[in-house]
């Protein structure tokens, strides 16, 4: 699905991501973990095209997307969320989501001027898609509310819906469960499961270990920009290198 080969990103003399190779399989939940500053978000930015890598290759279903601008990467089916999502606070949830499907539409200025059939058709499609995404994340009941009036957890779900409205094949979720309580965390885990059940590939960065260990099919561990381990939750949990990176070498403490 997503194949990354020897990916490196230098910021000045510092390697934020250093020679990372990994293969994310389709229809799986792939997690990236690591201490703060390990280069996880940079890794996402490289895949989604917001940053251009210094060296290495990124292949999406066999297509080389290494130096592609992010809007093109998105059109090829890479959706993503950010740690914080700025939305139009004084507009309804639904209004904020309609633009999510914009990348699958073609209407331009001329269509606006003459209110073309194509524009009308595409606007309906975008609205339907937004409703569909909203239904998927379970927020139909707040469709008409302003973003400013919904809860933190609902905002996070709206960010999911926005990514889903782009019709992605793979979604990159940057700390989806940060800042929500344990019960809501469980809700997000179920939502990610549901995404995979619907044929999506999920790739997430997360710090909540309980969630990751029970949810992920595969975990990659980054530390100081380098991949230090990879495998199933069980393998990663018992990997001494990982334990050292997290706990400073005290193996007993991890047990």
């Amino acid at each position: 699905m997503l194949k990354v080969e020897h990916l490196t990103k230098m910021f000045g003399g510092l390697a934020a991501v250093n020679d990372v190779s990994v293969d994310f399989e389709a229809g799986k939940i792939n997690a990236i973990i690591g201490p703060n500053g390990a280069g996880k978000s940079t890794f996402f930015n490289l895949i989604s095209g917001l940053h251009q890598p210094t060296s290495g290759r990124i292949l999406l279903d066999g297509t080389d997307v290494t130096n592609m601008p992010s809007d093109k990467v998105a059109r090829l089916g890479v959706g993503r969320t950010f740690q914080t999502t700025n939305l139009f606070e004084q507009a309804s949830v639904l209004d904020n989501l309609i633009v999510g499907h914009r990348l699958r539409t073609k209407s331009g200025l001329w269509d606006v001027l003459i209110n073309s059939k194509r524009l009308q058709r595409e606007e309906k499609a975008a609205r339907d898609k937004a409703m569909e995404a909203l239904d998927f994340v379970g927020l139909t009941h707040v469709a008409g509310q302003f973003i400013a009036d919904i809860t933190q957890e609902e905002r996070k779900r709206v960010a999911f819906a926005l990514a889903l409205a782009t019709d992605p094949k793979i979604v990159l979720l940057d700390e989806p469960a940060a800042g929500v309580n344990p019960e809501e965390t469980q809700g997000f885990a179920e939502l990610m499961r549901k995404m995979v059940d619907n044929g999506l590939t999920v790739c997430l960065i997360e710090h909540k270990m309980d969630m990751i260990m029970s949810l992920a099919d595969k975990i990659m561990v980054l530390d100081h920009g380098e991949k230090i381990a990879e495998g199933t939750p069980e393998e990663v949990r018992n990997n001494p290198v990982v334990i050292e990176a997290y706990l400073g070498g005290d193996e007993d403490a991890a047990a």
Partner: protein
Amino acid sequence: MLFKLGSFFMKPGAKMALLALAIVFPALASNEYQVYVMASAFVWAIAVYGLNIITGYCGQLNLAHGGFFAIGAYTLGLLTSDAGWSFWPAFVAALLVTAVLGFLVGVVSLRLKEHYFAIFTLCVGFIIYLLMDKWEELTHGPVGVRDIAAPYGFGVVDFTETTPFYYLVLAFLVFSIWFMGRLSRSLLGRTFIAIRNGDELAQSLGINLMRNKVLAFVLSTTYAGLAGALYAGMVRFIGPEEANIIHTFDMITYLLVGGIGTLTGPLLGTISIVWITQSLQFLEEYRMILFGPLLVVLVIFFPRGITGQFLTWMHHKAQTLSPAKKEKASKVQTATSGEVKNNA
């Protein structure tokens, strides 16, 4: 009670009532000067609608807007006075020139983000002023451009008269607002708003930043050019002062007061401030003592201006009213808020 009054303003009928009021205004005005002031307010409103596209919807603070207004005015002025063109061809040329220059400036300046973009366009605006002031062979320098043609009315109307000119400007204003309304509701308008929310998020939604920002910029400069050309046809004498940065800041004030990023805001802000300014003429420059603090208070407490505040208030009112009514029948219904939004 207030809510009912508010919902009236959101009905399509309110627009028609407003238009009818604008049409009968010359008959209601006590003298020709008032009609003239209103016509000039309409001209500025068109320019402010342009600023609203790039700054209000697309989120890029363009401080060269007054400069493009002046370019529109100068293109029309120089073509009709020095080159001897008649009004309407020169008018079309003014639109094309501001669109093309807008494209060229946009392609370069929009590579910059946020305040860097604002500072760059501030400089562009000043360069435009300097060109008009110093390039005497072309622009006549500080002397300005005289003998600008008035629009000819094809033998039907005489646009050198104030009242016919008022209707001409009104027609362009109505078209400008109509197009803005259509744009703001369309997928393209939503694309601009997505860019305002954040470059990175917009890109991750597959939006080509440069193409859409340049499009918004060109639209806004064309609006400015349209307003500038009408202005030149109205006052018939222009100078480098038309490109003064003051005009850009005036327009930003109109936009902030009326409601940035809203459809009614530019009209409301421009007309109210122009008339308040008129009625405070006796205070001369000291009226800024009044405007300054007013603007500060407004930006702090009503960041989306009068219109934005009104829409938010209406939305919340509709939300608190609708569950109260429907509580007995069923829970969770937000249909009313949806309707309010659609009419806005």
